[in-house]
């Protein structure tokens, strides 16, 4: 999907810097800030709402809010949505 408006809410206070969310992101939305040992949600517009980052975080730091309406189905009958 492109041109989406998904949001990712991150709580840096809870984060222990395990890098699992960074590794789990398969579409390069998440980069790693090695100085502060925290993820950077740099390319959120490319998020595919797979929820891996949220599910794999053992500290519950991440919440993905998918705005499904921003994903186009690309069909000529989108009017039924």
């Amino acid at each position, binding site marked *: 999907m492109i041109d989406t408006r998904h949001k990712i809410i991150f709580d840096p206070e809870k984060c222990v810097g395990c890098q699992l969310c960074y*590794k789990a992101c398969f579409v390069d939305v998440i980069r790693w800030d090695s100085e502060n040992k925290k993820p950077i949600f740099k390319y959120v517009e490319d998020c595919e*709402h*797979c929820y891996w980052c949220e599910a794999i975080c053992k500290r519950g730091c991440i919440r993905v809010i998918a705005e499904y309406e921003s994903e186009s*189905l*690309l069909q000529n009958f989108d009017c039924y949505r």
Partner: protein
Amino acid sequence: MDSKYGRKDLSTDVLIVGGGIAGLSAAVSIKEHDPDLNVLVVEKQTAGYSGKANKGGGVLQYFDLERIRPEDFVAYHVHSVGCYLGDQELMTKYVSMNHVLLDKLVEWGAKLPKNMDGSYCVTPTGPMTAMIGVDLDITLKVRQTAERKGVKFIDKVAVSDLITEDGRVTGATGFSILDGTFYTFSAKAVVLATGSQNYRIGPMWSSGRGDGIAMAYRAGAQLRNPEFGNFAQLVKVNSHSECVFGENYMYNCAGENITKNFRFFPEADISSSAVAEWFLQMSAARGPITLRLDEDRSNNALMSLWDRPFGKQFWKLNHSRAAEVDVDNEVCPMFIGEQSPVRVDHDMMTTIKGLYAIGDVSYCGSAAPGAVPAPPGRNRGSGILNAVFAGVVCAESTCKTARSNELVPLDEKKVEASAERVYAPLSRETGCTAKDVIRLIQRAVGPVEQSVYMSAHRIAIALKYVNKAKELAKTLKAVDFHDLIACHEAEAMVLCAEMQFRASDMRKESRGWFLREDYPDMDNKGWLKWIIVQNRDGDMVFSTEDVPYKKWKVQPYID
């Protein structure tokens, strides 16, 4: 040549491009065959997390080989799914190895739910087919096994070009997606395991962006069956979550069961006729199309079939969030793609010496499935196992190639040309964005009446978008390395869509998944042929090749 972003020159016996289940299976198998060979896996994101095997339903195809013989399944498949276009010998080998592959996965750490007596928990899906579960940490487990066996990994490096010399692959080039460092890899054998082309539409399929298909094409490898790159799946219209097996319970706004219009007996999986039926009903103002709630057997049912604790946390999130917006059961098809045309022989070697292609980059190119897109096209649960199969069977030949070849220094002129091509979007002052190009390609492939239920007229419309995108792609501009990947993916999408629609225009018949409104019948007299594509000095050249069906057991009817 020194790249302004820095340069690293590496060498290895075997270079594997892509760290999904196919690449990981090959890496482990090669080490099992010859522990002394150096094996390097280079992955654009993070090996073990990438690819599709860890994002789907966690399903493996199972054959009860005490009840059915491999040739029984192949006969069913050839008649009902592959429609005489498949390589029956390769399909028979895949089915025969089913239990070997499952045992390998268990040995490599994958968790397959079992009964108390140690047998697999099997769920039948038809007279010939069955499924068993696998937990979604499968790729992580196989990566760990590979590391234990001495396989080396480089993550966050996108391989962009293959380098060849006298018809043999000598290595590859790439760049770091983090800091842009230019990489060269000198290798005795190269294995492409980069997945299919899915045009960034279906979320879980989104890692397949055609990188390997484009690389192989540019290097001059033959591609086969590019027109079978048009898989589509029913999804809920609000959340776009898939409705596996939902095609069995489709109803129109008048409350009529429309599944009866295209399905006369239980079938293994979704067919293109279900997609066409949706389009015809919608065109006749009989939409919206819904699944009967009381008959719905989609994802939630699959999730609870087996105990898979790792996957459960992802499925739970996905389903609960989707349920928040799915106020009804309206469905529509979502184009997915799964184009996988890199031609390989029975050892998974491409038409370029020393270059192998495995998994979803070469599924249709192997010709094993016949007239159907890559897994799960009409063969649910076969995606992961086909990737494992290809990884396992390529190992012996890859080891032989790596042992007999010498490392050849990469031709510096070719390396320079590759670097120039790779970084070109970063050096343009102005130009279009990758998304400008991708948007046009998506307008070509997305609407299912253009890509699945086709006609000459609608293919021509799709090609207009593709040609527009092709022109625009000459001016691609990237602002950073993340954007640079997208530019190369956009170029790959243009190539793949062009061969998809031009080949679709050539095939003037309907066969298996391939469906044309203007040529509704299967033409065994004229079209028992494969369409072959090859890059000849920059031109996309198409030809046909007769399918050698006479040497196989199951014969088509030709009047």
